[in-house]
């Protein structure tokens, strides 16, 4: 067995070597072909692909966040504005020990326990490489101290950030709302709407109120700087720039002075008030008590405060005008009366005798009138001005729940009004069909009876009441309420009105409407339930009081406010418009546990009317203003 080629003589040896040299040459040529083939594949065949990859390596888009639009009242006074402040921000991924850094920072500047708690909450909600604010609105001294110590605090940065300031105070919190840091839920929604790209440079997003509902207008369009960056992400130079387009400014129908008067008149009660222009649907004032300080939310609220606001039994975070649902009580009567007339069930002159109670045929159960002994002989106008319960018990029975549902639905009960705020409640307008669906139970005749005076299942929001009253005031036009009147383009600086809100006509016989309106004027005239609240007014008011039971009163027992705990007292309601002949303002007031509509709710509305129609402020308010001036 031979393992090697025998080399007998030099010639054969050389010949073999030359053969092998050739094989070696061929081998090298093959290797070269492989290399050139690979080069051809990369540089010619896939060149387009790789040039794109190289470009996306090289070019990065750095977002430039737009300035958020302002929100101003109808006279241009600022409700929400931006300001720039230095913020201490921390990136956890960039530091060895978070606790050590926090201790070090605590030695340099003051960090309150609240700021620390807020920081830890934000930290727990964010990724390790995200920057999280620890303290905002740094003073110049703090910025200087931090800058001097920056070298030994990796992951700690001082950044100039845009913030939102709500200077109108807690009263406007429910209208303007607030912005907050974009969280995972916001991101998911933005992604669904394909708007994520536009928020690449944004930290905040509208969370409630107008800030939420007009988010797309207020936010503006994010600009992008096309930067050439190196492998470590450092910007080398700017290649091109698409400047950000600032958000649009919003101007409201709302008048800050009227709002202040309304808040003042409301006092310390809980509840809601809404004033709107029945001709346009524009909201003139909107009070939901209690309010809260929206500035707390702008760069993350600390957990304690959040817990307090969220769990307080007074529910300050709930906008009662939109989301508070209450039985309408007697404020439903004008609408019931109009429905009775329209359906031909009643004539204005039809009279009943009210003995103080009403019983269904074959039943011994007595549905009592609020007035012991009854109102005596009552026609339609009197039924409104005296708020006669028995009149409406009978009317309700004659009408039946289904016709009542359809008639009241025309005025928007049981439906969202369509105001330009999110989270509105639709209330509840009961019907036979609804009860079957919701409770799988038949409708009882007794339930029809109490529905006639706005008790039972029926629930409305103060906004629904105001919008329905506006239909009576403007002669039958249903208009969606609006807070925003105009928007301003940030580039042209021209205000552009948003135009008429969607409206529809409710078919009402003018004669029937006139009777009901007379009845509502009678309410405010001597002898009417709210006559005291109209005394001395330089204009006429049409209104209707209401009192809604919070707890059921046993058969035979009497309601005695003084013996009930405050939270069990009746809700006080009042709806009204003025001047009665040619209305320019509609008000709905809802005072939780306020007692009676005439005693508590109507005087509040009077104060608002006075200021709006005559410019007169409540006396106590002028005193306060003087005190402040001195």
């Amino acid at each position, binding site marked *: 067995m*031979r*393992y*090697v*080629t025998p*080399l007998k003589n030099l010639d054969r*040896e050389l010949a*073999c*070597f*030359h053969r*092998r*040299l050739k094989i*070696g*040459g061929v*081998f*090298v*040529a093959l*290797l*070269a072909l*492989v*290399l*050139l083939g*690979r*080069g*051809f594949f*990369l*540089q*010619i065949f*896939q*060149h387009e*692909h*790789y*040039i794109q*990859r*190289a*470009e996306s*390596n*090289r070019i990065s888009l750095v977002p430039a966040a737009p300035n958020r639009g302002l929100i101003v009242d109808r006279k241009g006074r600022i409700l929400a504005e931006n300001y720039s402040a230095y913020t201490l921000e921390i990136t956890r991924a960039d530091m060895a020990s978070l606790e050590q850094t926090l201790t070090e920072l605590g030695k340099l500047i003051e960090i309150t326990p609240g700021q620390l708690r807020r920081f830890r909450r934000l930290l727990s909600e964010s990724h390790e490489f995200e920057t999280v604010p620890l303290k905002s609105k740094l003073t110049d001294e703090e910025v200087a101290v931090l800058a001097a110590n920056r070298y030994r605090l990796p992951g700690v940065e001082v950044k100039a950030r845009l913030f939102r300031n709500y200077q109108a105070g807690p009263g406007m919190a429910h209208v303007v709302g607030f912005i907050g840091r974009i969280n995972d839920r916001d991101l998911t929604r933005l992604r669904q709407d394909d708007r994520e790209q536009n928020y690449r440079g944004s930290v905040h997003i509208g969370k409630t109120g107008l800030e939420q509902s007009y988010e797309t207008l207020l936010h503006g369009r994010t600009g992008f700087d096309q930067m*050439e*960056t*190196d*492998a*470590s992400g450092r910007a*080398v130079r700017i290649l091109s720039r698409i400047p950000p387009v600032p958000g649009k400014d919003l101007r409201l129908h709302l008048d800050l002075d009227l709002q202040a008067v309304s808040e003042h008149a409301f006092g310390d009660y809980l509840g809601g008030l809404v004033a709107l222009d029945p001709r346009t649907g524009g909201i003139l004032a909107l009070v939901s008590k209690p309010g809260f300080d929206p500035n707390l939310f702008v760069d993350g609220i600390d957990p304690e405060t959040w817990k307090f606001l969220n769990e307080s039994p007074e529910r300050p975070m709930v906008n009662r005008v939109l989301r508070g649902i209450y039985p309408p009580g007697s404020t439903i009567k004008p609408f019931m009366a109009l429905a009775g007339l329209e359906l031909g069930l009643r004539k204005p002159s039809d009279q009943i005798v009210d003995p103080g109670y009403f019983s269904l045929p074959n039943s011994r159960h007595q549905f009592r009138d609020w007035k012991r002994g009854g109102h005596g002989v009552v026609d339609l106008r009197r039924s409104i001005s005296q708020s006669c319960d028995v009149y409406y018990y009978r009317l309700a029975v004659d009408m039946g729940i289904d016709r009542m549902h359809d008639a009241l639905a025309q005025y928007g009960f049981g439906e969202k009004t369509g105001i330009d705020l999110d989270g509105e409640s639709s209330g509840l307008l009961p019907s036979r069909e609804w009860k079957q669906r919701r409770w799988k139970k038949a409708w009882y005749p007794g339930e029809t009876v109490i529905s006639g005076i706005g008790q039972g299942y029926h629930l409305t929001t103060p906004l629904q009441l105001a919008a329905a009253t506006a239909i009576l005031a403007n002669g039958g036009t249903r208009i969606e309420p609006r807070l925003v009147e105009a928007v301003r383009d940030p580039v042209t600086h021209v205000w552009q009105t948003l135009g008429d809100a969607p409206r529809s006509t409710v078919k009402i016989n003018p004669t029937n409407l006139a009777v009901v309106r007379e009845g509502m004027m009678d309410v405010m005239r001597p002898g009417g339930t709210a006559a005291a609240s109209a005394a001395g007014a330089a204009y006429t008011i049409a209104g209707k009081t209401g009192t809604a039971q919070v707890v059921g009163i046993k058969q035979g027992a009497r309601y005695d406010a003084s013996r009930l705990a405050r939270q069990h007292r009746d809700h006080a309601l009042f709806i009204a418009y003025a001047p009665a002949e040619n209305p320019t303002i509609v008000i709905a007031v809802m005072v939780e546990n306020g007692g009676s509509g005439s005693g508590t709710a109507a005087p509040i509305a009077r104060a608002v009317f006075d200021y709006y129609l005559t410019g007169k402020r409540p006396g106590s308010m002028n005193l306060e203003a003087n005190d402040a001036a001195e």
Partner: protein
Amino acid sequence: MQRNSHWLLRRLGHLDGVLLILVLMLLGISLAVVASASGQSPGRISGHLINMGLALMVMAVVANVPPHILSKFGLPLYVTGLVLLVGVALFGEIRNGSRRWLSLGVMTFQPSELMKLALPLMLAWYFQRNETTLRAKHYLFGAAMLLVPFLLILRQPDLGTAMMIGASGFYLLFFAGLSWKVILGGSAIGAASLPLVWGMMHDYQQRRVLTLLDPSADPLGAGYHIIQSTIAIGSGGLFGKGWMQGSQSQLDFIPERTTDFIFAVFGEEFGYLGAILLVAIYLAVVARGLTIAARAPTLFGRLMAATLSLNLFTYVFVNMGMVSGILPVVGVPLPLMSYGGTALLTLLLGVGILMSVATHRQLNKS
């Protein structure tokens, strides 16, 4: 003075003109690419020039030493190399998980570099010595001389260098006339034992091979190098982006771009045409080397010239293949292009030997 310069010219006569021109061309290109790749650190260029100067001088000196003298270095260099490799295995410094460096106090040194030349010299000297009585046992003994350093380097572990040294030893045995049966049989056994080798490979070595098969599986880790260098080469296109104009190169996307990945910079800035030119120059060097081998009067000269030529192109192939993503990343520099003194010195030493073989033909015969 006059006599001196005359002497110098005569000495320069031992340089091979063709090889010298080709080498200078490569070094010129290297200078340009290193200049482009080291934009931020101009010190590289002067360092590179000094390295080139020193290495060229060594080349010139070696070219003037007759091959039969050079062959005498084979045994002592090989033995020294082996001793150092054993020293490394026992006392070597560990860096990045492998034991490759020997500390000499002021500097560290990789004995495997020495082996790159020592092994072919040793084998060529050995076959020359036994030229007239070549038997199977000589080849067996040659194979053993190859295997000992190969295994020592393999277990450092340094797969790349071990393969390169293994290749140079194999080329020499091949040119010395190793039977085809043994070559083919060995290849078959080698292929069959691949799974075994895979099992013996270190984690990082396995990862490199896997990364090569699918770089996108680990785009920020081991795959990053390959992805970025293929992007650089591919985006260069036919004509390249121009000198100093490669975005991948200039914006730090290519790692090790003055050393192992210099071809990525070259490919991006000079394109496919540049790559063809570069490969052509290397092929010309190989062609010249094979011509020198064919004309060499002694077995030592023939074996050395042929082996060094093939070996050079093997380096070229492994480096370009790795940078363009068809071979694993094994840390082999591109001959005469990559920045780095040791590799340049070793390579120009080799070229010096080629020149010596080329220019001492008649001298030796006489």
